[in-house]
């Protein structure tokens, strides 16, 4: 799980923060901090599907699954179980 966390962190930092990781913790809410918007969520999902070979369903597009590094790691663990 820690591997996926560091991969997700890298992806978020590179794609949405343009390399500036400042205050990003594993718990930071992407929505509340304005890190990701609607098109950003689609980019994130495309990355997860490609990297982890999973398929994210429309109804799984919810903050509980995707709104922080921890949430994504938990979601991935569930999908890959």
């Amino acid at each position, binding site marked *: 799980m820690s591997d996926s966390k560091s991969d997700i962190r890298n992806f978020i930092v590179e794609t949405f923060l343009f390399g500036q990781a400042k205050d990003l913790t594993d718990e930071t809410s992407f929505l509340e901090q304005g890190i990701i918007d*609607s*098109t950003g969520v689609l980019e994130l999902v495309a990355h997860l599907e490609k990297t982890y070979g999973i398929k994210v369903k*429309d109804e799984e597009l919810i903050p509980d699954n995707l709104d922080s590094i921890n949430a994504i790691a938990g979601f991935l663990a569930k999908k890959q179980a």
Partner: protein
Amino acid sequence: MGQTVSTPSRHAPLVRDFLEQSADRLPEKTALVCDGKRLTYREVDRMADQVAQALISLGVKRGDRVAILLQNSVETVSGIFGIVKAGAVFVVINPTTKRDKLIYILANCRATALLVDGRTDLTGLAGETDLLVPSLRGCILCGATPTMPTGGTVRCLSFQTILEQFPATRPARENIDLDLACLIYTSGTTGDPKGVMSDHSNVVFATSSIIEYLGNTESDVIINVLPLSFDYGLYQLLMTFKFGGTLVLERSFAYPAVILKRIEQERVTGFPGVPTLYALLLPMDLSAFDLSSLRYLTNTAAALPVSHIEALRKKFPRVTMFSMYGLTETKRTLYLPPAELDRRPGSVGVPIPGTEAWLEDEAGQKLGPGESGELVVRGRHVMRGYWEAPDLTAKRYRPDRVTGDRLCYTNDLFRTDEQGFFYFVGRKDDIIKSRGEKVAPKEVESTIYGIASVREVAVIGIADPVLGQAIKAFVVTSDSSLTEKAVLAHCRAHLEDYMVPKLVEFCAELPKTPTGKIKKTDLT
């Protein structure tokens, strides 16, 4: 404005009436569903009264400007109505606005007070360093545990303190309907944002006209995912409170499944969208959601491709679709009566009820069917002009040669058919519409010129299925190690999210006209 010498004996309607009349008529009805809370009209009205009393205690007077820099929230809603109850003018600023531009806007409108998230860095605005906006007298800090600045002359109150300590007493009615209700800052071709002035009569008229053609009633439940800094989002709040419906206020459309679930739970009847949102909805499987409560969808900000309109109608067969067009300078301008959608899917319709519009050529001659010209608008929704920008105002708002009426010259080119329906042709300037919001290439270009090694830059919009237009920057640099990422990081630090380019291309030089100006038409 000074003191009121005489109080008008008959009140012309004001924006505060939207809330107060609904609160008097329907006190226990749910007005607002937001942040996991459900508030009745009485509760929202009381909160707004408390905010108004707090603003008055901070020194806010009739006609003063009060800014709001917050996400869509209960505080934003009670703030907007608290400000008009205090007789002041509200200025809702996009919450992703960066510091330099925030300070520009606050200084430009000489804001007296600011409602802001308690976690925002207020250096230079409040506390010992409160010198950047000399007009500022007070700040209201929202959110759970705001850090209260100390020292300085700007008084700070927490929103929580206001709810605990200020009386819910309706302030006296000082305004007349020619007083300003709000400034809406929008991008201009010059690059600096400018504040469109709406007086109370403009807002009252525009909301009534839109409510009329949408056929809104008290039983409507409207969901709004657009920022309240965007006039399309703001008017969902104003209209819903005016007709006594329920507003479901969300922060964004980032998670469409959450919004669809909310539509199902709250039995939403009206969904206002922009092309970007519809592009996200179209590929989704909606069968998991019960969307049977939906009565209508609206689209504005940019035209929906006809193929998307057709796909949406297949997806929502029992829902009425309204195609609309407008600009902040007149609020809404045109709407297509839904019965016409099959016959003229590419049209954005006719002038909204109680207004008129026509096309003129460069010489000011009115044009007939089939000819393309600039859209000119007449009606009481034509706003008052740009805040303290007489030259810009004179270009956009011109008097009718005979009656002296204030007309709006929209800068948008249209054509009409034989029956008088309008079709959008293009813009006269190079403003980009991305995610439904206006972006001035000049503002993005000025930001990129802030990178020391950048010699030349040109910013254009390119067609994008999701964004409407995507922003693309062409950059000439003397530093070959400058990366796309570095350019984007710089933009992200200085511009609102929706203004950050999607693409950056480095070039050896930019195409020029014979007079040496950058020729954007050669860029793709």
